[in-house]
């Protein structure tokens, strides 16, 4: 006997909802969600985790680069110090 399509879809969404609701706490606790049984059956959540890991990798690689402030900033700071603002 096959289940109605809507019923199956609702169950998938319910599973996804439960899985995704648990993500903040589990990720925050350092859990590897790749091993969760839901990941074996749900492409949507696999894709989500993949994206988040991809972004995390990109952040790790790209974001630590530092920016230089404008040259004039030091002059402003010096002026403020001379004025007794510091």
């Amino acid at each position, binding site marked *: 006997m096959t289940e109605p399509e809507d019923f199956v879809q609702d169950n998938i*969404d319910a599973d996804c909802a439960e899985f995704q609701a648990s993500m*903040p706490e589990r990720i925050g606790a350092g859990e590897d969600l790749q091993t969760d049984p839901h990941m074996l059956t749900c492409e949507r959540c696999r894709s989500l985790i993949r994206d988040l*890991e991809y*972004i995390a990798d990109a952040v790790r690689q*790209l974001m630590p*680069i530092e920016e230089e402030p404008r040259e004039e*900033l030091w002059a*402003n700071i010096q002026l403020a110090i001379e004025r007794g603002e*510091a």
Partner: protein
Amino acid sequence: MGLSNTAGPPPGDLANGALDGEGSVPPENRTIPAGLASNNTEQDLIAGQNESGEAVKDAPASDLGEAAASSVSLPDPADTSDAAVLARAQAGDHHAFAQLYSVHKRRVYSLCLRMLGNVAEAEDLTQESFLQLHRKIATFRGDSAFSTWLHRLTINVVLMHLRRKGLNLISLDEALDPSPDHGPARSFGAPDLRLTGSIDRMTLEKAVESLPAGYRLIFVLHDIEGYEHNEIAALLDCSIGNSKSQLHKARMKLREALRAPADEEVAK
């Protein structure tokens, strides 16, 4: 690969070179060698400062602090070591303070820029951070690395600024998410398209800048600056669960922002 610890070295390690300010200054331009300090933990830092970054703990001076404390009375102008430069700056030597600015300006400015997402504000608060440093430098006792101390001072300057602007950092869920009803959607319904192509730095910076202030704050502190949830909770006076939840929302929002260009590409 994991998502729980996406950042580089934790703040306690920020003084060890790569993210210490020195790490980003070309060697030929450095006026102070790398490594102003030690491996003190952020917990040491939290215990050692009040909200303004001022040292409040009467702990024994360590490494640089000890050197600084012992040389504050007689700083040798010819000594260019980190400790000596710091000691001279603490004694009011303007040239030494300029050297400290030269070494740390990029780190402080970048931190302000990422937390605020606005160049003009980042410059203002970089200035404010160094003015506060000038006011308080004599109170630095070496309980933590100097760069870590300055890093925390800067974060507190930014947080105070955000509070003054009316961002209630205590009630994060209500105040930091400006439109909870329009927050990052969960990933239901039609299967998601995977992020395609590679993300370049500009795109990523823009996406982070586009995050609502509260999301950006948590994201920067955790995923870029390396703070743990318990440290963020202490900084922002919120629960650890709240910090985790906000970080997750920030990441989902960032994913949305990064998917938009990718989706446009697919549509073409």
